[in-house]
């Protein structure tokens, strides 16, 4: 699933990479940027947390002409007079103007590094509104944001992830990095997947398949057991004629049909007497003790 997301075939989506202190998602974000550059799409990066040189250093070997870095690293709060992009400028109109400044054939990708930085200074509802408008706006094909989940209260993280069309949560495991991917399709269906991956130095993502779990082992134990109904010395099955004979057999202590119907429709309290084979009622000899 991670590879499909990296291909970026769907447009109009908001991808949020959720990381934490123990595992950084920045390299995954850079892989997304590199994949977009390789597809000859323009990428606009709002960089709050890393400098332009560091990003370009990490993206060595990719075509960088289409990468537009908006420097929000040196002076994001406009303390000196020479701010290029400040945190207050993170609103739909300014960002749309920024993207439209560079003319390109295909709609661009917008990468935000990181959303957590913006959330420290702008209210979450404003950030959500801006992201929603950017997602639906059409000036950017896809918006990718990095979010540090341990920096914010759960409600904020939850609200932002609620907006995302694809949410990738990364954490570290032994084999590599483990990503939990939740993708929302336009039809309302939700796909979930887990994958272990590593990122090489040239920012290509190598998927290492599904993470191992303990549950399939139990099921394997049961299916590996031999079928106990095989190789018996007696027959457990019935042939057709045997089944018919079995069903025709009159069970003992069973009532006749009339008595059953009477019992089922009871309510009047009738007594239904059915003479048995032994009830040979002789009028002349009721006690059946005459020796005749």
């Amino acid at each position, binding site marked *: 699933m991670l590879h499909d997301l990296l291909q970026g075939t769907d447009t109009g989506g908001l991808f949020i990479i959720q990381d934490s202190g123990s595992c950084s998602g920045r390299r995954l974000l850079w892989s997304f940027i590199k994949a977009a550059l390789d597809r000859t799409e323009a990428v606009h990066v709002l960089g709050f947390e890393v400098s332009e040189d560091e990003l370009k250093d990490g993206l060595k070997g990719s075509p960088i002409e289409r990468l537009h870095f908006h420097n929000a690293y040196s002076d994001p709060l406009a303390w000196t007079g020479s701010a290029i992009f400040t945190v207050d400028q993170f609103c739909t109109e300014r960002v749309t103007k920024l993207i439209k400044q560079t003319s390109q054939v295909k709609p661009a990708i917008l990468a935000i590094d990181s959303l957590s930085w913006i959330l420290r200074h702008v209210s*979450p*509802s404003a950030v959500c*509104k801006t992201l929603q408008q950017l997602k639906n706006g059409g000036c950017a094909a896809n918006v990718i944001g990095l979010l540090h989940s341990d920096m914010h*209260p759960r*409600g904020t993280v939850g609200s932002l992830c609620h*907006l995302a069309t694809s949410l990738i949560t990364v954490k570290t495991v032994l084999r590599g990095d483990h990503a939990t991917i*939740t993708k929302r399709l336009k039809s*309302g269906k939700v796909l979930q997947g887990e994958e272990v991956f590593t990122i090489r130095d040239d920012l290509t993502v190598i998927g290492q398949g599904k993470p191992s779990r303990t549950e399939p082992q139990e099921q394997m134990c049961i299916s590996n057991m031999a079928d106990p109904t095989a190789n018996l010395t007696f027959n457990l099955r019935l042939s057709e004629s045997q089944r018919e004979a079995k069903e025709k057999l009159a069970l003992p202590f069973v009532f006749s049909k009339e008595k059953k119907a009477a019992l089922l429709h009871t309510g009047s309290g009738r007594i239904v007497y059915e003479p048995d084979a032994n009830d040979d009622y002789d009028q002349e000899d009721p006690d059946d003790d005459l020796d005749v």
Partner: protein
Amino acid sequence: MAASVNDTCKQSVERTSINPTSFQKKTRNKLLSIPGTRLSVQNGQLLVSTGVTSLDYVLGGGLAVGTVLLIEEDRYDSYARMILKYFLAEGVVCQHELFLAAAQDHPNDIFQELPDPILDDVVMHKPADQPRLSSEPHGNLDAMKIAWRYQNLPKVQSGLASSSRFGHYYDVSKTMEPEIRQAAKCHHFYLPEQPRQSSATRSPVLDSYAALLKSIEEVIRREGFSVAAPPTKSRNILRIGLHSLGSPLWGDDLCCQDNPKHSHALTTFLYGLRALLRSSLSVAVVTVPSHLIQSRSLRGSITRLCDNAIALESFKGSERETGPLCKDYHGLLHVRQVPHLNCLTSQLPDHKDLAFKLKRKQFSIERLHLPPDLSETVSRVSRAEAAGAAALASACGSGNKHLDF
């Protein structure tokens, strides 16, 4: 002369057929007969269908006119949105007027996704269609040989339905025809398109909610839904759908912060909405992403302010262990609040454990029957202990757990 006698005879015949006595029943002229509504058998309230027949049964026959239904959304907002669409589609089929407000998607997009009604009534919900036992012929005495005394007892009915049909069925795989949809009158409220007004007064209601309330009030007054309006034309019902109130897109930080600044904005809005609805012929369905609200007391107060409240919990987003249930159902449905309108006690549903499943032609809500757990570790150890025991068993020789009594 004969003609006049005949005429008077005819007139007297007609009069006698209408009025055999001079006694005239004093009927209230206010008895409204609006298409798509019926009177409740429990307390005489005017009910409309929510579009989902099993949800009507859970709510006690339907949604009473003048009340609010709160749906607490599931984690990915798929099923709550589906119920909202059912509600609006039912309004289109019953020729009610619709009002839809959303901040995330444009209302027109939601209108285009309405499910297609099945109008030829092919799908009838028969109680016998719920197979709990194997398919045995009903009423045949030879059917049960040994347990024949139980033959005439009714079969366990796990699907919820009332005996009379009220409400329609919809096919989810198709969308409603544009002709049918355009026949219904719809009003929109899309928050990004509203002019941004800044209120000078420090009111507890947010600007977005205030604008929404004002818009609803204007529609009610203009289209004549208010109860106090003179009944000049035939009355109709206004169905109000409010999507995802309380989410940050409405400007509310209820879901974002642990101690929200606007903690009373949504509750004040719901209070005002309920006041508007009580004095008009309208019914509202509100969906709230309550899984994002961290404060339990706020969630509780939002629930208490609405007349009906249900919560959807889909298995996709929940963390709990739901192995055998995932196959049969899509999620659990919790009834948080039932209304008590004009009466002392409310009609509680019989069963508290309800699960829902979205099928193609029906959104079914059933009593939750856990399937029998046929694994070996059932009723002896819990799953967590079983995992530990399995690890232990594998450490000191496998296969022992089969003989473990």
